[in-house]
Protein backbone atom coordinates (compact mmCIF):
# COMPACT_ATOMS: atom_id res chain seq x y z
CA UNK A 1 0.00 0.00 0.00
CA UNK A 2 1.12 3.56 -0.63
CA UNK A 3 0.14 7.00 0.62
CA UNK A 4 0.22 8.84 -2.66
CA UNK A 5 0.97 12.54 -2.82
CA UNK A 6 1.35 14.36 -6.13
CA UNK A 7 4.36 16.39 -7.21
CA UNK A 8 3.53 19.03 -9.82
CA UNK A 9 5.65 20.45 -12.61
CA UNK A 10 6.51 23.50 -10.46
CA UNK A 11 7.98 21.24 -7.75
CA UNK A 12 5.17 21.69 -5.23
CA UNK A 13 3.54 18.64 -3.63
CA UNK A 14 0.01 18.09 -2.36
CA UNK A 15 -1.80 15.35 -0.52
CA UNK A 16 -4.24 14.42 -1.90
CA UNK A 17 -3.35 15.16 -5.51
CA UNK A 18 -5.45 17.32 -7.82
CA UNK A 19 -5.79 17.51 -11.61
CA UNK A 20 -4.01 20.89 -11.43
CA UNK A 21 -1.57 22.16 -8.80
CA UNK A 22 -0.66 25.67 -7.66
CA UNK A 23 -0.56 28.14 -10.55
CA UNK A 24 -2.23 25.56 -12.79
CA UNK A 25 0.81 23.26 -12.81
CA UNK A 26 0.28 19.77 -14.19
CA UNK A 27 0.93 16.67 -12.09
CA UNK A 28 4.40 15.26 -12.74
CA UNK A 29 4.76 12.22 -10.47
CA UNK A 30 3.43 10.52 -7.36
CA UNK A 31 5.37 10.27 -4.12
CA UNK A 32 4.72 7.64 -1.46
CA UNK A 33 4.52 9.54 1.82
CA UNK A 34 4.39 6.29 3.81
CA UNK A 35 8.17 6.12 3.40
CA UNK A 36 8.62 9.39 5.32
CA UNK A 37 8.05 10.59 8.85
CA UNK A 38 6.14 13.78 9.64
CA UNK A 39 5.75 16.42 12.36
CA UNK A 40 2.45 17.00 14.16
CA UNK A 41 1.25 20.55 13.38
CA UNK A 42 -1.93 20.27 15.43
CA UNK A 43 -4.21 17.56 16.76
CA UNK A 44 -7.60 16.95 18.32
CA UNK A 45 -9.61 14.19 19.90
CA UNK A 46 -13.17 14.10 18.67
CA UNK A 47 -15.71 12.58 21.04
CA UNK A 48 -18.82 13.18 18.92
CA UNK A 49 -18.24 11.10 15.84
CA UNK A 50 -20.54 10.28 12.91
CA UNK A 51 -21.90 6.79 12.19
CA UNK A 52 -19.15 4.26 11.42
CA UNK A 53 -16.32 6.30 12.95
CA UNK A 54 -14.41 5.13 16.03
CA UNK A 55 -15.03 7.08 19.24
CA UNK A 56 -12.94 8.81 20.38
CA UNK A 57 -11.31 9.68 17.10
CA UNK A 58 -7.77 11.08 17.45
CA UNK A 59 -6.88 13.25 14.43
CA UNK A 60 -3.88 15.30 13.40
CA UNK A 61 -2.61 17.54 10.67
CA UNK A 62 0.99 16.59 10.04
CA UNK A 63 3.73 17.97 7.83
CA UNK A 64 6.16 15.88 5.79
CA UNK A 65 9.48 17.16 4.51
CA UNK A 66 10.09 15.59 1.11
CA UNK A 67 13.58 16.60 0.00
CA UNK A 68 13.08 20.14 1.26
CA UNK A 69 9.50 20.51 0.02
CA UNK A 70 6.84 20.45 2.72
CA UNK A 71 3.49 18.74 2.28
CA UNK A 72 0.72 18.40 4.83
CA UNK A 73 -1.78 15.62 5.42
CA UNK A 74 -4.68 14.94 7.74
CA UNK A 75 -5.10 11.54 9.32
CA UNK A 76 -6.13 9.53 12.32
CA UNK A 77 -3.63 9.01 15.14
CA UNK A 78 -2.92 5.62 16.69
CA UNK A 79 -3.06 7.25 20.15
CA UNK A 80 -4.30 10.38 21.84
CA UNK A 81 -0.98 10.64 23.64
CA UNK A 82 0.69 13.14 21.29
CA UNK A 83 1.83 16.75 21.39
CA UNK A 84 2.35 19.37 18.73
CA UNK A 85 5.84 18.92 17.29
CA UNK A 86 5.98 15.13 17.83
CA UNK A 87 7.43 13.00 15.04
CA UNK A 88 5.05 10.39 13.61
CA UNK A 89 5.12 7.71 10.93
CA UNK A 90 2.26 6.43 8.74
CA UNK A 91 0.91 2.96 9.60
CA UNK A 92 -1.48 1.27 7.18
CA UNK A 93 -5.04 0.42 8.28
CA UNK A 94 -7.45 -1.64 6.16
CA UNK A 95 -10.54 0.35 7.15
CA UNK A 96 -10.43 3.83 8.65
CA UNK A 97 -14.21 3.99 9.07
CA UNK A 98 -17.04 1.61 8.30
CA UNK A 99 -18.08 1.92 4.65
CA UNK A 100 -21.81 2.46 4.23
CA UNK A 101 -22.47 3.45 7.84
CA UNK A 102 -22.40 7.14 6.90
CA UNK A 103 -24.10 9.07 4.12
CA UNK A 104 -21.40 8.56 1.49
CA UNK A 105 -21.88 5.88 -1.15
CA UNK A 106 -19.52 3.02 -0.15
CA UNK A 107 -18.38 2.40 -3.73
CA UNK A 108 -17.53 6.07 -4.33
CA UNK A 109 -14.17 5.92 -2.61
CA UNK A 110 -11.66 3.68 -0.87
CA UNK A 111 -11.69 3.31 2.91
CA UNK A 112 -8.23 2.05 3.75
CA UNK A 113 -5.45 4.47 4.60
CA UNK A 114 -2.87 5.45 7.16
CA UNK A 115 -2.86 6.35 10.81
CA UNK A 116 0.01 8.33 12.27
CA UNK A 117 1.99 6.64 15.03
CA UNK A 118 4.49 8.45 17.27
CA UNK A 119 8.05 7.47 16.45
Amino acid at each position, binding site marked *: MTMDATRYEDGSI*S*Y*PGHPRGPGGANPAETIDLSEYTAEV*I*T*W*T*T*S*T*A*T*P*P*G*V*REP*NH*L*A*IVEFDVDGESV*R*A*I*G*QLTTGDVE*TGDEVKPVHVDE*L*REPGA*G*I*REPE*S*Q*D*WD*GYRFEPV
Partner: protein
Amino acid sequence: MERVAIIGASMTQFGQREGEWITDLLAEAGIECLGDAGVDADDVEHLYVSNMASGEFEGQTGVPNALAHDLDAMPAYTQRIDQTSSSGGAGIYAAWQSVASGASDMTLLVGGEKMTHKTTGEATDVIASLTHRAEYKTGVTLPSFAGLTARHYLERFDAPRESLAKVASKNHKNGVDNPKAQFQKEVDVETILESPIIADPLRLYDFCPITDGSAALMLCPESVAKEYTDEYVVISGIDGATDTHVVHEREDPTIMGGVVESGKGAYEMSDLGPDDIDVAELHDMFTILEFLQMEGLGFAEHGEAWKLVEEGYTERDTGELPINTSGGLKSKGHPLGASGVAQAVEIYEQLMGEAGPRQVEAETGLCCNVGGFGNCVITTIMEAAQ
Protein backbone atom coordinates in the same frame (compact mmCIF):
# COMPACT_ATOMS: atom_id res chain seq x y z
CA MET B 1 -25.82 50.72 -11.60
CA GLU B 2 -28.83 51.29 -9.38
CA ARG B 3 -28.43 50.32 -5.73
CA VAL B 4 -30.20 47.22 -4.47
CA ALA B 5 -32.53 47.75 -1.51
CA ILE B 6 -33.92 45.44 1.13
CA ILE B 7 -37.50 46.40 1.96
CA GLY B 8 -38.60 43.49 4.12
CA ALA B 9 -37.23 40.80 6.38
CA SER B 10 -38.48 37.92 8.48
CA MET B 11 -37.31 35.02 10.57
CA THR B 12 -39.18 32.09 12.04
CA GLN B 13 -38.61 30.80 15.53
CA PHE B 14 -35.31 28.90 15.44
CA GLY B 15 -34.99 25.66 17.38
CA GLN B 16 -36.64 22.27 17.32
CA ARG B 17 -39.74 22.60 15.13
CA GLU B 18 -41.27 19.20 15.64
CA GLY B 19 -43.75 18.11 12.98
CA GLU B 20 -42.83 20.95 10.65
CA TRP B 21 -40.74 20.26 7.56
CA ILE B 22 -38.71 22.29 5.13
CA THR B 23 -41.63 23.45 3.00
CA ASP B 24 -43.59 24.51 6.10
CA LEU B 25 -40.67 26.54 7.46
CA LEU B 26 -39.92 28.23 4.13
CA ALA B 27 -43.56 29.16 3.63
CA GLU B 28 -43.82 30.64 7.14
CA ALA B 29 -40.82 32.93 6.59
CA GLY B 30 -41.87 33.74 3.02
CA ILE B 31 -45.40 34.80 3.96
CA GLU B 32 -44.12 36.91 6.85
CA CYS B 33 -41.57 38.62 4.60
CA LEU B 34 -44.19 39.43 1.96
CA GLY B 35 -46.27 41.03 4.70
CA ASP B 36 -43.33 42.92 6.16
CA ALA B 37 -42.44 44.34 2.76
CA GLY B 38 -46.03 45.00 1.76
CA VAL B 39 -45.47 43.13 -1.50
CA ASP B 40 -48.06 40.93 -3.21
CA ALA B 41 -46.87 37.42 -4.05
CA ASP B 42 -47.69 37.93 -7.71
CA ASP B 43 -45.29 40.88 -7.82
CA VAL B 44 -42.35 38.58 -6.98
CA GLU B 45 -40.38 38.02 -10.18
CA HIS B 46 -37.53 35.87 -8.83
CA LEU B 47 -37.77 33.52 -5.87
CA TYR B 48 -34.57 32.03 -4.45
CA VAL B 49 -34.29 29.34 -1.81
CA SER B 50 -31.08 28.92 0.17
CA ASN B 51 -30.89 25.35 1.36
CA MET B 52 -28.01 22.95 1.77
CA ALA B 53 -29.48 19.52 2.06
CA SER B 54 -33.26 19.05 2.18
CA GLY B 55 -32.82 15.98 -0.02
CA GLU B 56 -30.35 14.43 2.38
CA PHE B 57 -32.14 15.49 5.55
CA GLU B 58 -35.72 14.63 4.67
CA GLY B 59 -35.89 13.35 1.10
CA GLN B 60 -37.55 16.51 -0.17
CA THR B 61 -36.12 18.07 -3.31
CA GLY B 62 -37.51 20.76 -5.61
CA VAL B 63 -38.23 23.08 -2.70
CA PRO B 64 -38.14 26.39 -4.66
CA ASN B 65 -41.02 25.31 -6.87
CA ALA B 66 -42.90 23.98 -3.85
CA LEU B 67 -42.47 27.36 -2.18
CA ALA B 68 -43.65 29.27 -5.26
CA HIS B 69 -46.85 27.22 -5.17
CA ASP B 70 -47.30 27.57 -1.40
CA LEU B 71 -46.93 31.35 -1.65
CA ASP B 72 -49.00 31.53 -4.84
CA ALA B 73 -46.04 33.30 -6.41
CA MET B 74 -46.25 31.60 -9.81
CA PRO B 75 -44.99 32.24 -12.44
CA ALA B 76 -41.93 33.61 -10.56
CA TYR B 77 -38.60 32.19 -11.69
CA THR B 78 -37.21 29.93 -8.96
CA GLN B 79 -33.77 28.62 -8.08
CA ARG B 80 -32.19 26.73 -5.18
CA ILE B 81 -28.87 27.98 -3.82
CA ASP B 82 -26.62 25.41 -2.14
CA GLN B 83 -23.29 26.58 -0.86
CA THR B 84 -23.24 24.40 2.28
CA SER B 85 -23.31 26.56 5.45
CA SER B 86 -22.99 29.73 3.38
CA SER B 87 -26.05 28.94 1.27
CA GLY B 88 -27.81 31.90 2.89
CA GLY B 89 -25.07 34.36 2.02
CA ALA B 90 -24.83 32.91 -1.47
CA GLY B 91 -28.58 33.40 -1.75
CA ILE B 92 -28.17 37.07 -0.88
CA TYR B 93 -25.50 37.34 -3.58
CA ALA B 94 -27.77 35.62 -6.13
CA ALA B 95 -30.74 37.78 -5.17
CA TRP B 96 -28.57 40.91 -5.32
CA GLN B 97 -27.32 39.87 -8.78
CA SER B 98 -30.85 39.26 -10.01
CA VAL B 99 -31.87 42.81 -9.08
CA ALA B 100 -28.61 44.59 -9.92
CA SER B 101 -28.54 42.99 -13.36
CA GLY B 102 -32.05 44.20 -14.13
CA ALA B 103 -33.37 40.65 -14.46
CA SER B 104 -35.81 41.10 -11.60
CA ASP B 105 -37.54 44.09 -10.03
CA MET B 106 -38.70 42.11 -7.00
CA THR B 107 -36.77 39.15 -5.60
CA LEU B 108 -37.75 37.14 -2.57
CA LEU B 109 -34.99 35.14 -0.90
CA VAL B 110 -35.95 32.47 1.65
CA GLY B 111 -33.36 30.35 3.43
CA GLY B 112 -34.18 27.33 5.52
CA GLU B 113 -33.17 23.94 6.84
CA LYS B 114 -34.88 21.14 8.79
CA MET B 115 -32.31 19.18 10.78
CA THR B 116 -33.37 18.23 14.30
CA HIS B 117 -35.18 15.02 13.37
CA LYS B 118 -31.75 13.51 12.70
CA THR B 119 -29.38 12.43 15.46
CA THR B 120 -26.36 14.65 16.07
CA GLY B 121 -24.15 12.01 14.45
CA GLU B 122 -26.33 11.78 11.35
CA ALA B 123 -26.60 15.55 10.96
CA THR B 124 -22.86 15.93 11.50
CA ASP B 125 -22.26 13.32 8.79
CA VAL B 126 -24.52 15.11 6.28
CA ILE B 127 -22.49 18.27 6.86
CA ALA B 128 -19.15 16.39 6.77
CA SER B 129 -20.10 14.96 3.38
CA LEU B 130 -18.80 18.21 1.90
CA THR B 131 -15.24 17.08 2.64
CA HIS B 132 -12.73 15.57 0.22
CA ARG B 133 -12.59 11.76 0.03
CA ALA B 134 -9.16 11.82 1.70
CA GLU B 135 -10.66 13.80 4.59
CA TYR B 136 -13.99 11.99 4.87
CA LYS B 137 -12.52 8.53 5.37
CA THR B 138 -10.60 9.74 8.44
CA GLY B 139 -13.93 10.51 10.13
CA VAL B 140 -13.11 14.20 10.30
CA THR B 141 -16.09 16.47 10.96
CA LEU B 142 -16.47 20.22 10.84
CA PRO B 143 -16.20 20.34 14.66
CA SER B 144 -12.94 18.35 14.36
CA PHE B 145 -11.54 20.99 11.99
CA ALA B 146 -12.47 23.58 14.60
CA GLY B 147 -10.61 21.63 17.31
CA LEU B 148 -7.52 21.29 15.12
CA THR B 149 -7.55 25.00 14.26
CA ALA B 150 -8.30 26.17 17.79
CA ARG B 151 -5.35 24.25 19.23
CA HIS B 152 -3.04 25.68 16.59
CA TYR B 153 -4.32 29.22 17.19
CA LEU B 154 -4.06 29.05 20.98
CA GLU B 155 -0.55 27.56 20.90
CA ARG B 156 0.82 29.84 18.20
CA PHE B 157 -0.57 33.12 19.54
CA ASP B 158 -0.32 32.22 23.21
CA ALA B 159 -4.02 32.97 23.60
CA PRO B 160 -5.82 31.81 26.75
CA ARG B 161 -8.46 29.09 26.39
CA GLU B 162 -10.84 31.39 28.27
CA SER B 163 -10.88 33.86 25.37
CA LEU B 164 -12.83 31.35 23.25
CA ALA B 165 -15.23 30.74 26.11
CA LYS B 166 -15.81 34.49 26.30
CA VAL B 167 -17.03 34.47 22.69
CA ALA B 168 -19.61 31.82 23.55
CA SER B 169 -20.61 33.58 26.75
CA LYS B 170 -21.03 36.93 24.96
CA ASN B 171 -23.17 35.46 22.21
CA HIS B 172 -25.36 33.54 24.65
CA LYS B 173 -25.87 36.78 26.58
CA ASN B 174 -26.96 38.54 23.38
CA GLY B 175 -29.31 35.68 22.55
CA VAL B 176 -31.27 36.26 25.76
CA ASP B 177 -32.85 39.29 24.09
CA ASN B 178 -33.66 37.50 20.86
CA PRO B 179 -37.08 35.84 21.25
CA LYS B 180 -36.50 33.83 18.08
CA ALA B 181 -33.16 32.37 19.22
CA GLN B 182 -32.93 28.65 19.93
CA PHE B 183 -31.28 29.33 23.30
CA GLN B 184 -32.24 32.36 25.35
CA LYS B 185 -30.10 31.80 28.39
CA GLU B 186 -26.81 33.11 29.66
CA VAL B 187 -23.93 30.69 30.03
CA ASP B 188 -20.93 31.77 32.08
CA VAL B 189 -17.29 31.14 31.21
CA GLU B 190 -16.83 28.57 33.98
CA THR B 191 -19.74 26.46 32.75
CA ILE B 192 -18.35 26.59 29.22
CA LEU B 193 -14.88 25.52 30.37
CA GLU B 194 -16.34 22.62 32.36
CA SER B 195 -18.69 21.36 29.64
CA PRO B 196 -17.92 18.03 27.90
CA ILE B 197 -15.07 17.93 25.40
CA ILE B 198 -16.30 17.59 21.81
CA ALA B 199 -13.12 18.23 19.81
CA ASP B 200 -10.27 18.93 22.16
CA PRO B 201 -9.58 21.73 23.17
CA LEU B 202 -13.12 22.77 22.27
CA ARG B 203 -16.08 21.84 24.44
CA LEU B 204 -19.83 21.59 24.04
CA TYR B 205 -20.50 25.31 24.40
CA ASP B 206 -17.91 26.21 21.75
CA PHE B 207 -20.28 24.77 19.14
CA CYS B 208 -23.56 25.93 17.66
CA PRO B 209 -26.57 23.64 17.97
CA ILE B 210 -28.46 21.71 15.28
CA THR B 211 -31.49 23.75 14.36
CA ASP B 212 -34.69 24.01 12.33
CA GLY B 213 -35.65 27.40 10.98
CA SER B 214 -36.09 29.80 8.12
CA ALA B 215 -35.46 33.47 7.31
CA ALA B 216 -36.28 35.71 4.38
CA LEU B 217 -35.42 39.01 2.68
CA MET B 218 -37.16 41.05 -0.03
CA LEU B 219 -34.85 42.80 -2.50
CA CYS B 220 -35.60 45.31 -5.25
CA PRO B 221 -34.03 48.28 -7.03
CA GLU B 222 -33.88 51.43 -4.89
CA SER B 223 -36.27 53.22 -7.23
CA VAL B 224 -38.85 50.47 -6.68
CA ALA B 225 -38.21 50.46 -2.93
CA LYS B 226 -39.33 54.08 -2.77
CA GLU B 227 -42.73 53.07 -4.14
CA TYR B 228 -43.21 50.87 -1.08
CA THR B 229 -41.50 52.66 1.80
CA ASP B 230 -39.39 55.61 2.91
CA GLU B 231 -37.28 53.44 5.19
CA TYR B 232 -35.17 50.65 3.83
CA VAL B 233 -31.65 49.29 3.75
CA VAL B 234 -29.25 49.07 0.82
CA ILE B 235 -26.63 46.47 0.05
CA SER B 236 -23.61 48.64 -0.57
CA GLY B 237 -21.03 45.89 -0.89
CA ILE B 238 -21.11 42.14 -1.46
CA ASP B 239 -18.63 39.56 -2.62
CA GLY B 240 -18.00 35.84 -2.41
CA ALA B 241 -14.78 33.86 -2.51
CA THR B 242 -13.40 30.37 -2.03
CA ASP B 243 -10.43 28.74 -0.35
CA THR B 244 -9.07 25.21 -0.72
CA HIS B 245 -11.50 22.30 -0.55
CA VAL B 246 -8.90 20.29 1.37
CA VAL B 247 -8.51 22.24 4.60
CA HIS B 248 -4.97 21.13 5.54
CA GLU B 249 -3.60 22.37 2.21
CA ARG B 250 -3.92 26.00 3.34
CA GLU B 251 -0.59 27.65 3.91
CA ASP B 252 -1.68 29.15 7.23
CA PRO B 253 -4.40 27.25 9.15
CA THR B 254 -5.36 30.46 10.97
CA ILE B 255 -6.19 32.42 7.83
CA MET B 256 -9.38 31.81 5.88
CA GLY B 257 -8.65 33.09 2.39
CA GLY B 258 -12.34 33.19 1.49
CA VAL B 259 -13.03 35.57 4.38
CA VAL B 260 -10.14 37.83 3.41
CA GLU B 261 -11.01 37.93 -0.28
CA SER B 262 -14.77 38.31 0.06
CA GLY B 263 -14.24 41.02 2.68
CA LYS B 264 -11.84 42.84 0.40
CA GLY B 265 -14.37 42.72 -2.44
CA ALA B 266 -17.25 43.92 -0.28
CA TYR B 267 -15.20 46.79 1.16
CA GLU B 268 -14.08 47.83 -2.31
CA MET B 269 -17.61 47.82 -3.71
CA SER B 270 -18.98 49.83 -0.79
CA ASP B 271 -16.02 52.18 -0.61
CA LEU B 272 -15.92 51.43 3.11
CA GLY B 273 -13.37 49.82 5.40
CA PRO B 274 -13.36 47.89 8.68
CA ASP B 275 -13.37 51.13 10.69
CA ASP B 276 -16.67 52.15 9.08
CA ILE B 277 -18.58 49.09 10.30
CA ASP B 278 -20.84 49.73 13.30
CA VAL B 279 -22.16 46.21 13.90
CA ALA B 280 -21.33 42.78 12.52
CA GLU B 281 -22.81 39.31 12.38
CA LEU B 282 -20.05 36.72 12.04
CA HIS B 283 -20.41 33.00 11.41
CA ASP B 284 -19.69 31.64 14.90
CA MET B 285 -20.53 28.03 14.08
CA PHE B 286 -17.53 27.40 16.36
CA THR B 287 -16.08 30.02 18.70
CA ILE B 288 -12.69 29.95 16.96
CA LEU B 289 -14.36 31.12 13.74
CA GLU B 290 -15.24 34.46 15.33
CA PHE B 291 -11.52 35.13 15.85
CA LEU B 292 -10.60 34.09 12.31
CA GLN B 293 -13.29 36.28 10.75
CA MET B 294 -12.45 39.30 12.94
CA GLU B 295 -8.89 39.04 11.70
CA GLY B 296 -9.72 38.19 8.08
CA LEU B 297 -12.08 41.16 7.83
CA GLY B 298 -9.58 43.60 9.31
CA PHE B 299 -11.29 44.18 12.65
CA ALA B 300 -8.20 42.82 14.41
CA GLU B 301 -4.57 42.14 13.54
CA HIS B 302 -3.64 38.55 12.75
CA GLY B 303 -3.44 36.58 15.98
CA GLU B 304 -4.92 39.36 18.12
CA ALA B 305 -8.70 39.03 17.90
CA TRP B 306 -8.67 37.23 21.25
CA LYS B 307 -7.24 40.35 22.89
CA LEU B 308 -10.15 42.47 21.62
CA VAL B 309 -12.63 39.92 22.96
CA GLU B 310 -10.83 39.96 26.32
CA GLU B 311 -11.05 43.79 26.34
CA GLY B 312 -14.80 43.76 25.67
CA TYR B 313 -14.42 45.39 22.23
CA THR B 314 -17.13 43.16 20.74
CA GLU B 315 -19.69 43.43 23.56
CA ARG B 316 -23.16 44.56 22.48
CA ASP B 317 -23.84 47.35 24.94
CA THR B 318 -20.36 48.63 25.74
CA GLY B 319 -18.05 47.57 22.93
CA GLU B 320 -16.80 49.61 20.01
CA LEU B 321 -17.83 46.93 17.51
CA PRO B 322 -20.75 44.80 18.70
CA ILE B 323 -20.48 41.35 17.13
CA ASN B 324 -23.37 38.90 16.91
CA THR B 325 -26.03 41.02 18.58
CA SER B 326 -28.55 38.38 17.46
CA GLY B 327 -26.84 35.79 19.65
CA GLY B 328 -24.97 34.47 16.63
CA LEU B 329 -25.23 30.93 15.36
CA LYS B 330 -24.03 29.93 18.80
CA SER B 331 -27.19 31.00 20.61
CA LYS B 332 -29.67 31.74 17.85
CA GLY B 333 -29.01 28.39 16.15
CA HIS B 334 -27.72 27.26 12.77
CA PRO B 335 -30.31 25.95 10.33
CA LEU B 336 -27.73 25.72 7.55
CA GLY B 337 -29.50 27.38 4.61
CA ALA B 338 -31.20 29.97 6.81
CA SER B 339 -28.20 31.20 8.77
CA GLY B 340 -26.70 33.60 6.24
CA VAL B 341 -30.12 35.09 5.58
CA ALA B 342 -30.81 35.41 9.31
CA GLN B 343 -27.52 37.26 9.77
CA ALA B 344 -28.74 39.84 7.25
CA VAL B 345 -32.16 39.96 8.94
CA GLU B 346 -30.40 40.99 12.18
CA ILE B 347 -28.34 43.67 10.42
CA TYR B 348 -31.49 44.89 8.64
CA GLU B 349 -33.31 45.21 11.96
CA GLN B 350 -30.34 46.99 13.54
CA LEU B 351 -30.12 49.50 10.67
CA MET B 352 -33.89 50.05 10.68
CA GLY B 353 -33.88 50.61 14.45
CA GLU B 354 -36.14 47.58 14.96
CA ALA B 355 -33.87 45.39 17.10
CA GLY B 356 -35.62 46.15 20.39
CA PRO B 357 -33.50 45.37 23.46
CA ARG B 358 -30.65 44.29 21.16
CA GLN B 359 -30.53 47.67 19.42
CA VAL B 360 -27.14 49.31 18.98
CA GLU B 361 -26.27 52.60 17.31
CA ALA B 362 -25.55 51.62 13.72
CA GLU B 363 -25.75 53.03 10.22
CA THR B 364 -23.52 50.41 8.58
CA GLY B 365 -23.43 46.68 9.22
CA LEU B 366 -21.60 43.64 7.90
CA CYS B 367 -22.35 39.97 7.80
CA CYS B 368 -19.97 37.17 6.98
CA ASN B 369 -21.36 33.74 6.15
CA VAL B 370 -18.89 30.84 6.04
CA GLY B 371 -19.40 27.57 4.19
CA GLY B 372 -17.51 24.37 4.91
CA PHE B 373 -14.54 25.22 7.10
CA GLY B 374 -13.88 28.46 5.25
CA ASN B 375 -14.20 26.71 1.89
CA CYS B 376 -16.61 29.33 0.55
CA VAL B 377 -17.54 32.68 2.08
CA ILE B 378 -19.90 35.57 1.36
CA THR B 379 -19.43 38.99 2.94
CA THR B 380 -22.23 41.55 2.72
CA ILE B 381 -22.17 45.19 3.78
CA MET B 382 -25.48 46.96 4.37
CA GLU B 383 -26.29 50.60 5.06
CA ALA B 384 -29.37 52.42 6.24
CA ALA B 385 -30.75 54.31 3.23
CA GLN B 386 -29.93 57.99 3.28
